[in-house]
């Protein structure tokens, strides 16, 4: 059932860097405050907080205290990966639409470069102790050398290569498209042009992935304010409307390890695409841009296919032909993505969609942007997506 009447009224960011020099709590507070300022909202009017992370964010109790929020009418702290980056916005929209809270701040903060790095020893231990995995998984992964996300996603990418003939030029085209867009984004950290030669010269991480197939581990935070349409109209910025949200968490599939998937070259998007577009009441041809979760280059390709924009196996050609570039048929990752803007765990792709739909994206603005797709995930198991619309 559609959620009527929720809008995004403000967005905010800290600086994105390799070393913030600040605590995760300070980053979160700064980003939420900036989002409230953007909306023209007194920060103490926030009465709901939603965040997620893998034990590396600042949770709602901490942030609410530091913002002097007092009583929260709604809060939610997910121990989860980037697959929920859109689900948390849907959750905030539900909280607002059902009257649980009036102004919900959704945020993600992390010191992903200078602090806990995914794939490192400390991270592996942490993952083994969270309830994310079944109690069975880590003992089979750590003992066979599968200890970092790049390895898991590379395994999915290889399966796609086997089945569809995808190759490294397809992955490179995603990296180069993101980099070109990042050049137009003052928040992006990697803005120098990228050539195929430079891509091919970058070091291997987990063949078929090189360093430049992997997103940019980043220190920083971003936030957005979700409120009712009615309230949003009274605030400073044009509201961006919540048009649809869908999540897929397939039972009987692992979290990181998708051991019970029937087909590792297909992702969650195949299961939610139709109901997402039906809820929004639009077709694929109505989408003006897409922010596709790019923890790795490959995940962009599989999502483009499984949301139904191109047939299976043809996403690489779409990128190589420039159709995902600004000015192309469907501009993808207009901010440079997690690959070149930075890895704020996918929530920064939601804030980019808001900027685009307000017409505030400057040199990278998609002309006449009316509808944007944002999604989060990339593996067979779980993911989430949003369709947002201009006021």
């Amino acid at each position, binding site marked *: 059932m559609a959620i009527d009447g929720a809008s995004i009224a403000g967005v905010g960011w800290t600086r994105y860097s390799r070393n913030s020099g600040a605590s995760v709590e300070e980053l979160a507070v700064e980003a939420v405050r900036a989002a409230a300022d953007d909306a023209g909202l007194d920060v103490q009017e926030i009465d709901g907080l939603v965040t997620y992370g893998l034990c590396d964010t600042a949770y709602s109790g901490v942030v609410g205290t530091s913002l002097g929020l007092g009583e929260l009418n709604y809060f939610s702290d997910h121990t989860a990966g980037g697959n929920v980056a859109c689900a948390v916005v849907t959750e905030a929209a539900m909280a607002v639409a059902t009257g649980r809270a009036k102004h919900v701040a959704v945020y993600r903060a992390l010191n992903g470069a200078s602090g806990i790095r995914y794939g490192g020893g400390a991270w592996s231990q942490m993952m083994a102790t969270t309830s994310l995995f079944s109690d069975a998984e880590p003992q089979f992964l750590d003992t066979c*050398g599968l*200890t970092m996300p790049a*390895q898991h996603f590379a*395994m999915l990418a290889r399966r796609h290569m086997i089945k569809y003939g995808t190759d490294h030029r397809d992955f490179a085209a995603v990296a180069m498209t993101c980099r070109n867009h990042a050049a137009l984004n003052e928040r992006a950290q990697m803005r120098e042009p990228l050539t195929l030669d430079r891509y091919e010269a970058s070091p291997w*991480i987990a063949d078929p992935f090189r360093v430049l197939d992997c997103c940019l581990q980043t220190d920083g935070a971003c936030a957005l304010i979700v409120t009712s349409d009615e309230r949003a109209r009274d605030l400073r910025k044009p509201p961006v409307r919540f048009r649809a949200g869908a999540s897929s968490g397939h039972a009987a599939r692992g979290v990181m390890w998708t*051991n019970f998937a029937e087909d590792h070259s297909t992702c969650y998007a195949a299961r939610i695409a139709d109901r997402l577009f039906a809820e929004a009441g639009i077709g694929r041809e109505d989408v003006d841009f897409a922010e596709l979760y790019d923890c790795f280059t490959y995940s962009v390709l599989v999502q483009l296919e499984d949301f139904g924009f191109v047939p299976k196996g043809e996403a690489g050609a779409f990128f190589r032909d420039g159709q995902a570039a600004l000015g192309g048929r469907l501009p993808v990752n207009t901010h440079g993505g997690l690959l070149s803007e930075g890895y704020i765990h996918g929530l920064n792709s939601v804030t980019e969609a808001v900027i685009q739909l307000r017409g505030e994206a400057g040199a990278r603005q998609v002309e006449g942007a009316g509808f944007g797709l944002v999604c989060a995930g990339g593996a067979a198991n779980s993911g989430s997506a949003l369709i947002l619309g201009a006021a």
Partner: protein
Amino acid sequence: MEMLPGQPLPVPTVLTQPFWDGCREHRLSLQRCLGCRRFRFYPTAACPHCASPDSRWEEVSGQGTVYSWIVARKTYDPYWRNRVPYVCAIVELREQEGLFMPGLLVDVDPSEVRAEMPVEVVFEDVSETVSLPRWRPRGAAAGRSG
């Protein structure tokens, strides 16, 4: 066999202990559903296919094919960083379509790995009480480690 420093060892749970007990005896055994008769891996409390909670552990052939693979060339793990390059694969077991296990491939040149390559389980004795399943090309000579 000398144990490498920091080699990650399994921490079995009640659910997984039978798997590791089998490995100790160099037998690969998996849960098999008593409802729909399908094997499953990793171990789960009930069948992901038919939801039956009833299963028993059965030895399987230890033969399969490479469904997908990666060559790990840089990692941050304190142990595995010293073993690069190494090959990890998803192995599809002969017993059942879609019955997958992740594993370390040994006795293989990374450039020679191919999809559908036949592999078989071998066991690496890492301590007096722990043996880990590894996979090697079927018919490969033993001795070289990955």
